[in-house]
């Protein structure tokens, strides 16, 4: 049995270890060993689901990969609150998963939610809007009018899956206190699918123009920087541009990984890289957004009142 060891901290950075552990071809059963995990974010959890689906697709339904859950009861409990086990049950053979799903709590902004159709997008926005407004205005100190844009971002992100991926995906968001890393609270959004990726989505329409330069990286640059889309309709392709604009406005981080490349808008507080190429191949598209709390001066008229 091949063993894939999950790193102790599982987020968008360490996801690369999972991606590079993916065997090129699967001849034996796989154990995904997450016992060492001490910290995981929405991106990390969706990454585990994506890994399970890729392994399962390769091996067939009779040979689902096994998932060894984290030793940490805190992490196991948190993953339950995020709805991880409900989704993972179809992908992994698991031992020791809590039988009853833990109830969601106020720190969970949106549990892991499948995105398969436009109806899901409506449900997500309906479910998250009120909660997001409360968290963004009270904890992240965003003005109310701007906080509405969070639901717009989620809607556009999820629609990207439906319109472009050709496969279903997942979304999850969560608030954290990044005390050591940033000294502020953040909201983390993760969106993943295992569809055709940017290279596949744009290839039919744009690959010929790029010739030999057409790659995962050039496809990402075309969409991310230039707003290129596979549709002729001039009204298309603005969702991603507006998500970038809003993320920049909130001094946030956005990164999109697709195939073997990753592109990002890097704020000053991050040491991330704007473009990475030559990553381990992984199907579909993986998006990470981090929105830090607003730094508000005392006396700032935009500062929400206590208890507002």
């Amino acid at each position, binding site marked *: 049995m091949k063993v894939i060891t999950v790193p102790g901290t599982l987020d968008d950075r360490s996801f690369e270890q999972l991606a590079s552990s993916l065997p090129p071809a699967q001849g034996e059963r796989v154990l995904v060993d997450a016992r060492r995990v001490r910290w995981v974010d929405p991106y990390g959890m969706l990454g585990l689901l994506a890994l399970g689906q890729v392994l399962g697709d390769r091996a067939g339904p009779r040979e689902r990969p096994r998932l060894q859950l984290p030793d940490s009861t805190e992490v196991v409990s948190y993953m339950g609150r995020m709805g991880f086990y409900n989704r993972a049950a179809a992908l992994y053979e698991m031992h020791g998963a809590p039988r009853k799903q833990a109830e969601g709590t106020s720190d969970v902004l949106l549990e892991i939610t499948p995105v398969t159709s436009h109806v899901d997008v*409506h*449900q997500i926005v309906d479910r998250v809007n009120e909660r997001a407004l409360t968290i963004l205005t009270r904890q992240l100190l965003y003005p109310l009018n701007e906080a509405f844009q969070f639901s*717009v971002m989620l809607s556009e992100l999820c629609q990207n899956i439906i*319109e472009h991926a050709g496969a279903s995906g997942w979304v999850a968001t969560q608030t954290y206190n990044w005390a050591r890393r940033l000294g502020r609270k953040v909201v983390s959004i993760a969106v993943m699918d295992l569809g055709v990726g940017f290279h596949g989505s744009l290839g039919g329409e744009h690959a010929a123009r790029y010739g030999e330069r057409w790659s995962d990286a050039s496809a990402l640059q075309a969409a991310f920087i230039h707003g290129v889309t596979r549709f002729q309709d001039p009204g298309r392709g603005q969702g991603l541009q507006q998500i970038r604009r809003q993320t920049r406005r909130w001094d946030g981080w956005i990164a999109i990984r697709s195939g073997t490349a990753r592109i990002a808008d890097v704020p000053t507080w991050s040491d991330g890289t704007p473009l990475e190429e030559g990553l381990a191949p992984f199907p579909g598209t993986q998006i990470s957004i981090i929105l830090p709390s607003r730094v508000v001066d005392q006396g700032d008229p935009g500062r929400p009142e206590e208890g507002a």
Partner: protein
Amino acid sequence: MTELGRVIPLRFDMSEMVRRSVATLYSHLVTRPTGQALRMGIEAQIAELGTMCLTVLDFSEVAVLDYSCADEVVAKLIKRFQREDRPVEAYFMARGIENRHQEAIDVVLGRQGLAITAELADGRVTLLGEASASELAAWNGLDALGRAAPEQVAEATRSPQAEINRALESLARRRVVARVDIPRTYFALRPLAAGSLSRS
């Protein structure tokens, strides 16, 4: 006195409409299929009228409006009635526009060279989308006058006549102001919607 003729007012409460015609359970204006369904419903009612109409899209009760839906319901609606094969003469205004709606509408229209007269939630009126400086001057001048000949707009805005002529023509072609030809007179949509002109 020059009259535009009978202009039928049509008002669509967008929040009510999405509940009625798209999905009973959902109240937000998100996703392209939702916008398409709304647009088709509006187009059908306009076509059914069969006469010139001023359509007010009321967003007062809409909490979330995403870019995809705004593109489908606002931008494509305007584009449809800019085309030569439009079923009737129809003009559009947005109402109840909060900051949270303004950006989505402004962006989707601006990207495609479109514009719409918008009454903001605080009562102010503005032009959202794409407009040149001379178009904006002409639109502001006409809005203050209600209806006017091109010469009156040029005088009110202290702009060169030829420039105002071009700007008003462009605004009329883009369905942002209404126009009658003999004698050439332009009508701002806000006072038209308020009914002040139809009483004169």
